[in-house]
């Protein structure tokens, strides 16, 4: 018979070191156990979907940078794919390969950040997060080399990519994917994957069953950790992903630890894809010329990409004008977060933080 006490209400966030932005969990806590969680989002809402209706299709690309600012390339790519589908724009081969290279590099960068932040949530005193940052910086250096920006790249264009890669890019990329990153991943394996304390903290914490995962329409590492091999790059190939050989890493238990090792494994698979893409990289134009004020025919299109967080879908409706009539984003952060309440009830505060960290939300994308 436990001691009865009125649950204490604790605001975890919006200003909290571990809520990954301005996300707020109002947790009712009995001792250390969480009795109930009320999730409150919207602190970073910038009404991008509405603003987009006032801007041309090309002008909307920067919004997608600022949605998931840790995976700007993936956002760019998804949006451009949807508009291309709507307007029927053909993309040159070289642009497709460049898109794949940059999307996969972006996945590495985003997963580095996710892994580091997750270990930080487990309580490491910033060493893993600094290591992961170090490797993310290397990827961002390549972005800067190509498009001049590190975080909000604004690189993809409707019909291709903004710039062709500079001459020094391929040697730098070769050094990165064949030397620096594999070494870094070995370090992660030593520091993180085999760490007993991480196992104790993350094993059997925040478990998602396959039923819940599918019912809640989860995607990304969260879905794959539950044991379901589902990846849009295989299921609904875009950008010629069906030409590359890679595997989908899938977890056993659906817990936080599985999600972490899946992310590390996905980074390796990304390197594999990049190697193939670099080997086959064709010559030619990097962009189809399209009118500045693109007026796609009236209609609607939905296209989705496997962003680092999960299925990132863009639904565009055009009325034949230069701006989208309606623009909607299926943000994986928001949908993945919907299971947080079920996952955290009954856990301790520490576990709830670990669970939240393992979902890897991005509040910019969550609130848009």
């Amino acid at each position: 018979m436990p001691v009865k006490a009125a649950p204490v209400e604790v605001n975890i966030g919006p200003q909290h070191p571990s809520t990954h932005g301005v996300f707020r969990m109002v947790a009712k806590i009995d001792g250390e156990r969480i009795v109930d969680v009320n999730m409150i989002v919207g602190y970073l809402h910038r009404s991008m979907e509405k603003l987009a209706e006032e801007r041309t299709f090309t002008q909307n690309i920067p919004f997608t940078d600022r949605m998931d600012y840790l995976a700007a390339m993936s956002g760019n790519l998804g949006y451009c794919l949807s508009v291309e589908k709507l307007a029927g724009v053909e993309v040159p081969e070289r642009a497709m390969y460049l898109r794949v290279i940059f999307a996969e590099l972006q996945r590495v960068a985003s997963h580095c950040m996710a892994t580091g932040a997750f270990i930080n949530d487990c309580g490491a005193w910033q060493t893993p997060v600094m290591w992961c940052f170090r490797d993310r910086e290397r990827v961002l250096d390549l972005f800067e080399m190509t498009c001049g920006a590190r975080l909000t790249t604004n690189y993809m264009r409707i019909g291709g990519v903004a710039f062709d890669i500079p001459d020094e890019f391929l040697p730098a990329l070769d050094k990165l994917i064949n030397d620096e990153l594999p070494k870094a991943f070995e370090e992660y394996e030593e520091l993180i994957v085999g760490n007993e304390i991480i196992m104790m903290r993350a094993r059997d914490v925040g478990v998602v069953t396959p039923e819940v995962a599918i019912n809640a329409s989860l995607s990304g590492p969260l879905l794959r950790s539950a044991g379901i091999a589902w990846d849009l790059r295989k299921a609904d190939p875009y950008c010629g992903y069906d030409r590359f050989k890679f595997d989908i890493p899938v977890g056993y238990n659906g817990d936080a630890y599985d999600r972490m090792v899946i992310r590390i494994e996905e980074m390796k698979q990304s390197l594999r894809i990049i190697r193939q893409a670099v080997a086959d990289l064709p010559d030619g134009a990097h962009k189809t010329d399209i009118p500045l004020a693109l007026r796609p025919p009236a209609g609607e299109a939905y296209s989705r990409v496997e962003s680092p967080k999960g299925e990132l879908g863009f639904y565009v409706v055009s009325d034949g004008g230069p701006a989208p009539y309606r623009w909607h984003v299926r943000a994986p952060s928001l949908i993945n977060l919907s299971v947080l309440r079920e996952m955290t009830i009954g856990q301790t505060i520490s576990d709830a933080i670990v669970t939240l960290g393992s979902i890897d939300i991005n509040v910019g994308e969550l609130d848009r």
Partner: protein
Amino acid sequence: MHSPVLTLVLHLEEVLIVGAALFAIGLYVALSKRNAIGILMGIELMLNAVNITFLGFARMSVSEDPIQGHVFAVFVITVAAAEAAVALALAVAIYKHRETVNIDQIDLLRW
């Protein structure tokens, strides 16, 4: 050793009076407080007062084996620790059943 100006002296009586004062405060706390833990505090105060007395005697009184006072003090501390553990466990157990630790509301045995 002695300062020529002023020599302060501490007598056994003074130590005993300090102990007695502490004991009286402890008794007052133990008798008057409403909260079970408050009462426990009074009891601990009384035990401390007893220890001061024991050690005062051990230091200043005539005895064949003055270390006995210390032995008793250590036993008192031991018993006090045991008593604190059990009493606090009791308080928590009572709280679980009655949702209060105020002794004037714990009246199961009244009728």
